[in-house]
């Protein structure tokens, strides 16, 4: 009898935990680390339903849920409690980077209308501009965009890649964009630090080919409340 009661309350607890996890992530502005903001209200509604069902399970003495199912559904809750929430970052760029030779159409599909003021461009707009135009046309345009620092071993100390993910639905479809930045203080930054790039577009010649690059400084910033870009 004791054991049954325990199992029943465990079932209620896991159901409650799932709902509470979503509410907590919503309240702490972390839901958008995982999904496109357009689904936020849908998720909050779902969380309310789960919490109500949990209360209902407790009040009606609903039967216990089999242990294997409880154990598996504890996983997302355990992740939420024990693993620090962090957005997709430098850790996954190698797996999710945009393939350079096939990205043109992809970017065209993300239809970005470029304004005349290049200082308002996000990294997505910069990437689009770089693909669409002659690099010389962009020369000396001013840049002020945000992203995280991503280093690769082949870059000199004062050069970093500044990256950001584009998310269509959820983090499962995140695609990493990045632009090379040569910064006088570039050596001070390490992977995943969020920065604002302030500088101008100056194509650089590397190993005989011209590559897009921003020259300027990096300013350390807090992670933006929505770390991803949404096309």
């Amino acid at each position, binding site marked *: 009898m004791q054991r*049954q009661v325990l199992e029943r309350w465990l*079932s209620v607890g896991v*159901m409650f935990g799932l709902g509470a996890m*979503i509410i907590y*992530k919503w309240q702490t502005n972390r839901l958008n680390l*995982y*999904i496109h903001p357009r*689904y936020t209200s849908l*998720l909050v*509604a*779902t969380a309310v*339903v*789960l919490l109500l*069902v949990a209360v*209902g*399970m407790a009040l*009606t*003495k*609903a*039967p*216990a*849920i*089999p242990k*294997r*199912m*409880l154990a*598996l*559904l504890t*996983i*997302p809750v355990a*992740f939420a409690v*024990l*693993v*620090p929430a*962090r*957005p*997709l*970052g430098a*850790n*996954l760029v*190698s*797996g*999710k*980077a945009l*393939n350079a030779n*096939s*990205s043109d*159409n*992809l970017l*065209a*599909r*993300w239809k970005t209308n470029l304004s005349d003021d290049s200082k308002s461009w996000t990294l997505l707009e910069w990437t689009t501009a770089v693909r669409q135009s002659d690099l010389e046309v962009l020369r000396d345009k001013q840049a002020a965009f945000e992203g995280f620092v991503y280093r690769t071993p082949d870059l000199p100390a004062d050069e970093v890649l500044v990256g950001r993910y584009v998310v*269509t*639905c*959820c*983090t*499962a*479809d*995140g*695609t990493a964009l990045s632009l090379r930045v040569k910064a006088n203080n570039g050596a001070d930054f390490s992977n995943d630090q969020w920065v604002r790039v302030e500088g101008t577009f100056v194509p650089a010649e590397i190993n005989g080919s011209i590559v897009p690059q921003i020259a300027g400084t990096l300013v350390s910033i807090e992670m933006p409340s929505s770390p991803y870009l949404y096309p």
Partner: protein
Amino acid sequence: MAVVSIDVKPKNQRKWLLFFAPIIGILGLWLASGWLVPSNLAPLTNKLQGLVTTFQGIFIEALPFLSAGVIVSVLIGEFVKPQHLASFVPQNAFGASIFGSLLGLLFPVCECGAIPTSRRLLRKGAPASMGIAFALAAPVVNPIVLISTSIAFGDVRWALARVGFTIIIALTIGLIIGAGIKREAILTPLALTPDVEHDHSHCDHDHGACDHTHEQPKGRLAGLIAHGSVEFFEMAQYLVMGSLLAATMQTFIPQSALLTLNDSGIGFFAPLLGIVVLMLVAVLLSVCSTVDAFLALSFLGLFHPGAVMAFLVFGPMIDIKSTLMLTTTFRRSAVMAMVVLAALFAIIAGLISYVVLI
């Protein structure tokens, strides 16, 4: 097919799995938490935290749709009587398959919701061919997906072609598997259990929750909550497993590897390769069918339209999480047959689209 084999392991192997899974899980959790982790393991912690973010993305995104499916299923359980169903569902396999493949227009559910709904209908006495056709077609043949596909592609023809292919494939598979084979050979014991009205004994799952008796909850609402919560956990456990697998593969297999594979096809095989690669991507990503059109759109630049069509048709029918969920309703041999046939027909649909849309 490795996905299906998880449950095919012999008993003693399963015991080993049960023994090691928690140990590996706790070890992984510790590494991912980053708490007192030695600095030389930091890169692994980084990767695992990325894995967790991807997992939560898939899991959280699917949760509302799974819950909706369970609610629909519980409501059918409560309000649809077997004799209702018998009076308007054709009893021959062909009619039942057609009916099943179109029923999604009435019950707008994605793949996470289609499977509990399908099982509920089967327990109400629906023919097996109808259950199969519904489970495969409903994720696409419903108003929400029609609208989202039209909006994403800005062209209603894409949506219509997607729905058309899906209906044809689902009803063909429903016919092939469902006609002439006994229900008992296709359905799990659970899906065969007749769903009797107001039977709140909750012994309708095979996982041992009813080894011990407990007092009967009173009232209709209590029954709905009891049914709903058990069904939610039963389906959600496969969502967790599927999301974990998909997130692990995404973390450790770079997408660029697949794209490189796509670019390596030559001549006659190039279109075929693109189709197969995008179908693999669909299985790996395991994204819900209500949102995958937006994702598919982003592939249109990288792959030919036939491959994108194969992605749109195959992904909602078969991916890691839905394959696992299908095993709650259909026997493993039937699930295998569904996976193989769906893959085959999706390739054909892709090739037809390649020729027509190019």
